[in-house]
């Protein structure tokens, strides 16, 4: 798996595919609250993108691209998720009570559940990449 993929075509295809997939994953995440999608599916798609990149370019490249360790990604995601839940707690509501902003340009309404979903998204990416990269490097 560390070997670069033999096929140049595949490599090139993946080269273009990866950013597209990553974009798509963010799209899935953002629209998940209203249409099928969300943090899980989005995260999985993003992870698949990195995985493809790993297949074509080898795992070191992926780690380089990511800049931070997948395990750290998980921790950050968890922190975001639990933090979004605690916001409610500090304004005197029960844990995970949602708070919403007004309508924002481009992004629509931003609320703590959306932030929570971002946390989920990051955790999923981190988890899949941790597992897959570690296995691939075996």
């Amino acid at each position, binding site marked *: *798996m560390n070997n670069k993929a033999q096929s140049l075509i595949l490599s090139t295809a993946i080269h273009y595919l990866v950013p597209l997939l990553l974009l798509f994953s963010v799209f899935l995440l953002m629209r*998940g*609250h*209203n*249409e*099928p*999608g*969300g*943090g*899980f*599916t989005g995260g*999985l*798609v993003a*992870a*698949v993108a990195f*995985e493809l990149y790993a297949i074509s370019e080898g795992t070191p490249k992926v780690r380089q691209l990511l800049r931070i360790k*997948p*395990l750290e990604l*998980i*921790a950050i*995601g*968890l922190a975001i*998720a*639990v933090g979004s*839940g605690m916001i409610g707690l500090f304004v005197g509501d029960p*844990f*995970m009570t*949602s708070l*919403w902003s007004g309508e924002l340009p481009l992004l629509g*309404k931003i*609320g703590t*559940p*959306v932030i*929570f*979903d971002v*946390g*989920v998204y990051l*955790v*999923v990416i*981190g*988890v*899949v990449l*941790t*597992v*897959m990269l*570690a*296995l*691939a*490097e*075996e």
Partner: protein
Amino acid sequence: MRKWLIALLPLALTFYFASFIPAIAGGETSTATIEWIPSLDIQLSFYIDGLSLLMALIISGIGTLIIIYGGEYLAKDERLPHFYILTLLFMSAMLGVVLARNLIALFIFWELTSITSFLLIGFKHEYEKARKAALQALLVTGSGGLALLAGLVLLGLVGGSFDIPTLFQEAKSIQKDSLYLPILVLVLAGAFTKSAQMPFHFWLPGAMEAPTPVSAYLHSATMVKAGVYLLARFTPILGGTPEWHTLVIGFGSATMLLAAYIALQQTDLKRILAFSTVSALGTLVFLLGVGTPLAIKGAVIFLVSHSLYKGGLFLVAGSIDHETGTRDVNLLGNLRQSMPFTFVGAILATGSMAGIPPLVGFIAKEVVYEATLEESAALLLTGVAVLTNMLTVAAAVLLVIRPFINKAGELPKSPHETPLSMWLGPILLGILGLAAGVFAPAFGANFVEAAINGITQKPKTLHLALWHGWNTMLMLSMITVAGGVIIYIVLENLLPLMHRLRFNDVLSPATAYQKMLDGLLKVADAQTRLLQHGYLRRYVLVIVISTASLVGYTLVTLTDLASIQFEASTSVRVYEGLLFFLIMVAIGVGIRAKSRIAAVATLGVVGNGVALIFLFYGAPDLAMTQFAVETLTVLLFVLAVYRLPLIKEYSGKRVRIRDGLVAASFGIIMTALILMVISSALPSNLTNFFAEYSLPKGKGRNIVNVILVDFRGFDTLAEITVLAVAALGVYALLKWPTNDEKHANPTATQELDQL
């Protein structure tokens, strides 16, 4: 020096208790209560009447002497402080037993005596014998203790209180209750194990592994008397019934006679004393079983006399052992010259034991005979008593003549008289025995009367005298002594016969105990090997069988399988039927798969088939997730497992059929259950709420997602935590530096390389 200081503590206690004598002898009782667990009716309450006072005096008085004696005896032992602490602890526990007014408090102190005696018996714990003896004593008395606990709780339930004096009032209703017999048996089990009644007596001779001061204290004067005390205490509650008479007299008389017989065959001083103690305990139990005022009088006097002389004799035995280095009566001799004070102590003690006037033992024996003579089965009971006493007299004679008068053999050490601290005890106890006999009226008025009244709970005055004139009892006494002497004289000739009778083997519960213990270990071993065999698949099998039978049995017995409705709400469409068929085929292939390709393909087909089902039934989010996870799983499988060897079937055909049947029946049960559930389900309580609030308050149009991040976001938080930990686990497993691969089967490694 220290021993004298420490002895001040029990001495002070003795004086403290002695200060109660006038009041108690005047018929009063005294109570002190500390609330402990009021919600359970358990108080730490203490109660002094004649019986408990007498016991308390024996415990603290003899305890004082034991501390002094032990301090000298164990002077060279570095664990002497342990001896002091444990003995004092034991003493407190024992005082607690006799003073407790609350059944549960009594039980707690009772168990504490078992624990402390366990530690004391095992004092010389570097010897395996001591450890075994300690364990044996603990197990026997501990088991009895648990029976006692059940008995006491039942007694409390039936009698409506844990307070002993209150229970005295309830005696009639308790004895009429259907639970009376179980209560009696359980309480007796506790008392008999503690007081070493046959067949539970064997732990007591074993316990002679303890240092002699401990034996003197625990195994003659105090702990073993706890069972006797219990019987005495409960006489007004449980006594007087035919069941009581039968059981208590039966065990008591058998014990007193047989133990006296066995005692004579021993050659170890302490073992002789131990068996003779068992016999004395039997006598006490026997008397309490008879339960007439005379018998109880006999019991009280004998209790005092036995505590005094047996305590003294154990101390004498300890001194002899200490000075000569042996306890073998065949070896010992001639000690009257080298150990004169000890000899005097021995004479006084054995005299009382043999019932020679004017020692208190004489009075005891007279009263015992008087009591047996007035029974309906007088001939039998008196006969047993006389025979027992003859054997006891013979033992007493032996205890004086062999070590002190006979010629000595080769002794390991040359004996000298012990220091004051060691001969003080025997002499003092002997003098007390003498005083109790000589001043019988005062002894009777101050101690015995109140104690008897404490047992019977029917106050009466008592006149005790040493001399009753020429009567039947005196005749019997004389016959007893004469018989005992004769037995001693012919003992040498009798012994071979006694051994040949092999009576002891038949009557040897010690062997039974050992066999039970071995059997227990064997059963435990076998059971554990049977259940805990270590084979994963058989564990799974047992779990599946258990689940299937629990669920299946309940399904069949508690529900009506006929109520399953097969015409379901949704009909089958062609593509659905096809999908169903496809998945079923894939499952079939999976079961028989021999190659990894087939395995991966199976997983893929089934997983994606399931995703399609989700899609057909309005769950696009689920379908997407399932597709993605499926892809990842296959990838994982390829990455991790693909290098495993070909799939082999290791099990034989019969095993496969067995497993197949079990698994199939589980599957059938699940199918039935699901159909059943579908036909009797209640409508969901939640769906409409979610539909209604998803947009206005959850701000989302994908209800599933709103549930995941908002309505039930907490689930999701936990779920991503699971994912995170799983990832950490995978990471740790794979990155853990290990040199295990080197140890692995080399052929397997080669196999790996080839792949």
